[in-house]
Each structure stands twice: as structure tokens, then as C-alpha cells.
């Protein structure tokens, strides 16, 4: 039992070991301890989706996860999707379809969409909209985001 612990987390393929306060949120761990500020923090109670990361391959709210819970886990953040000068496929689709305006919500959308494309069938626009419904874009640029996801989904096979 402790209020502090030493944890080892694999983030975007790199192993990181840090001593953390038990109450440190994974979102703050990524941003403040590791300097990975691509993961954005909006509401800090699981409503907006800006802080979405992949925890052992599935999307999760990093603001509703403790860093200490992630000990031994594999984390993927928006920084892992592409490289400087070389956008990842989801990022490129966002660029092609104008899927972002201010960009604050974008990292969360990109990570949710990565989970959607890996694990969900996305047979039509309704599926796409339902799967995106946990991420909020206050610029309300949803049409363009849906267009980007539709293109990505079609690359896997025809939609209904």
C-alpha cells in the first residue's frame, strides 16, 4: 500500500520508468512527466474525449486512468501516429478532408478513430457517427471528420 510507486510504461514503443504519485492521472503523466503534450486535456472528467489514448490497444480516457494503473501497460499517443514531415494515414485523411479547425480535439479524435479502424466494422455512416459520438469538437467540424473516417473505412472494404 502506498501513495507513490515506481512504474514502467511502454509509450509509443519506448519503455519509460518513473516514480509517480498514486493520484497522478495518466493524462498528466504523459504531458508533465514525459513531455508528450500532444494528448490534450479538456474536461478532465471523461466527457470531451480530447485526452483519448490507446491503452493496450484499445481507446481509453487518459483523464479517467491513473498513471499507476498503467504500470506494465502499452500506451499509444498521438505522437506515435506519424513522424515530423510524414503524417500517419489517419492524420493524412484529416488533412485531406479539412478534419480540423482549431485542433484542440484532434488528438483525441485521431486515437478514437485508430481504435475504430482496428476493431470495429463501420459498415455505414451511422456506425461512424455512433463511434465518434464520445469525442466533442467545439468548432463543430463533424462533417469533415466523418468524411475522413468514411474514406479510411472504405480503404478496408466497401460500405453499405
Amino acid at each position: 500500500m502506498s501513495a507513490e510507486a515506481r512504474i514502467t510504461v511502454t509509450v509509443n514503443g519506448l519503455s519509460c520508468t518513473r516514480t509517480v504519485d498514486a493520484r497522478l492521472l495518466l493524462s498528466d503523466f504523459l504531458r508533465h512527466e514525459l513531455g508528450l503534450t500532444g494528448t490534450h486535456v479538456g474536461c478532465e472528467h471523461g466527457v470531451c474525449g480530447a485526452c483519448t489514448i490507446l491503452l493496450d490497444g484499445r481507446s481509453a480516457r487518459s483523464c479517467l486512468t491513473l498513471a499507476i494503473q498503467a504500470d506494465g501497460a502499452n500506451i499509444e499517443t498521438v505522437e506515435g501516429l506519424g513522424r515530423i514531415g510524414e503524417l500517419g494515414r489517419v492524420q493524412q485523411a484529416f488533412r485531406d478532408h479539412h478534419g480540423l479547425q482549431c485542433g484542440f480535439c484532434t488528438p483525441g479524435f485521431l486515437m478514437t478513430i485508430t481504435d475504430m479502424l482496428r476493431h470495429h466494422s463501420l459498415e455505414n455512416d451511422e456506425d461512424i457517427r455512433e463511434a465518434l459520438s464520445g469525442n466533442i469538437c467545439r468548432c463543430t467540424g463533424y462533417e469533415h471528420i466523418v468524411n475522413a473516417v468514411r474514406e479510411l473505412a472504405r480503404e478496408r472494404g466497401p460500405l453499405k
Partner: protein
Amino acid sequence: MKPARFDYVRAESIAHAVEVLADAGGDGKVLAGGQSLMPMMNFRLVKPSVLVDINHIAELDRIEHRGDRLHVGALVRHRMTAEDALVVRHIPVLHHAMKHVAHLTVRNRGTFCGSVCHADPAAEMPMMTVLLDGTIHTASPRGSRALPARDFFVGSLVTALEPDEMATSIEIAVPAEGSGWGFEEFARRHGDYALAAIAVLMERRDGQARNVRVAMMGVGDTPLRLLDVEAALEGREVTRAALDEAIEALKMSIDPNSDLNASSDYRRHLAAVLARRALGDAWSRTRQTSVEIAA
């Protein structure tokens, strides 16, 4: 730091978790999916001195089929329940209800048992537990208990769980072959907590509704089983007249709260509209049972 300070324990077994809860003297909290607990801790509405993380207790992450009951372990995530082959095939009402539980990312983490123990009166899994004749299995320093759903939900966010007690699994009934189901929910935005929702199961024998079960949420401090609505349809053909009587019974048996989202009158009206649809859907989805075909 968002949450207040606490000690963290990664429990290795149910016995270990219970021991830590007992030592916490009523000030411990169990962390499973964290999709309700963590927001409350971030707001410091909940400030446990000890957080018991049960995510690494291997035996809790299973759905087991025993006879005509399904046992859902305390670490079974909403996504696992939604995708479970038995649930898809034999409990379509539960599979359908899962689409209304928050959002994809929350369903990846949130658990069936956690939602039931959180006992939000407008959350789907407590209502489904009531509908499906659920029993909540618990462990505490005094041993294990099996609490029927009707005794479990005490009030809004209040259950019969003791502070040093944890839910280990929830068992629910697998509806009889050929049962029809209905599910209707109204929320302001998809995935939000509902203003009202209803879930219905019924069988059809000799052209009559049998074993009618009706549960609602969002119209009281706990999920409700509506016995008078069930009685209005039991043993009858579900005609327009029978539905009218059932809806009258519904209006008499609920007394919804008013809040900033909806007045009591509006909720009662909404409940009636949703109920008429769900009851009709359930009746039309019933299939002739083999007994009836033989007759």
C-alpha cells in the same frame, strides 16, 4: 493533481481486495473500469483513503453460462458484454441496450458490475439487472452474499453494498427461447444519461403474452420493475386495448422527479410513449414456441 491523496493497492485476489477494504475501515473504494468513480474523484466528490484496484484479478474478467443464467464477472467491460456471442444470440435486449451505454471509449473500460454498483437511476445496466432477474454476488470480511436486484437498489447512487463489501459478479437470466424484447430510450444526446428508458421481455403462448417483464429507468430514484404494467398484459393478447390499459397502469405506477432536463409531467408522458413502442415491439418479436406449434 485532480483527486485527493489516497493509498493505492493492486489487489491480487478477491480475498486480498476484501482484506484491504476491511482495513480501510469503510473509507476504501474499489476501482474497476473507473468510468464513474474517476470523474467523482477528479471533482473530489469522492475522497477514498484507499483505492483497491481489482483490474489484475484474473478470475473476474469472464462471462460464464451456467444453466439458464449468465454470470458476469466484476471486470467484464461493457464492450465484452456487447460482443459476447451468448449475449448477441440469447439476450438481444442486452446487446441492444449496450449501444446506449455512453460511448465506444467508455465502453472499452467501464464494467457491467461497476455500473450496477454505481447505481445511477438513469444508467442502463442497473435497469437491465432488474429486468433480467439479476442477483448481485458480493464478498466481504463476513463472507459472500447473493443479493436479488430488487433488494440491491436503495436510492439514487445508493445500494445495499456495505462499505467493506465488493461485487464479484452479477448473474442474469437468459430469456426463454422465442421471447420477444423491446427497448426504448430517450436522451438529449446519444450516449448521455437517459431522460427515460424502458426494457421489456415477454413470451407468447397460445396467442397470449406470458412472463411479461417490464423495467424502467430515469423515472424514479432507482430502476423500477413495473409489476402493474406486467399484470395488465399477462395472459392476454397484446391488442391496442390491452396496451391502453398497460399504459394507464404505467402512468399510475411512476412518480418521476423534475430536474433541469425535464419536468415530472414531461417524463411521465415520455415514459408512456416509450412504453407503448417497447411493449408493441416485444409482442411483435415473440416467436411461436415449440409447445404452441405442437398444439
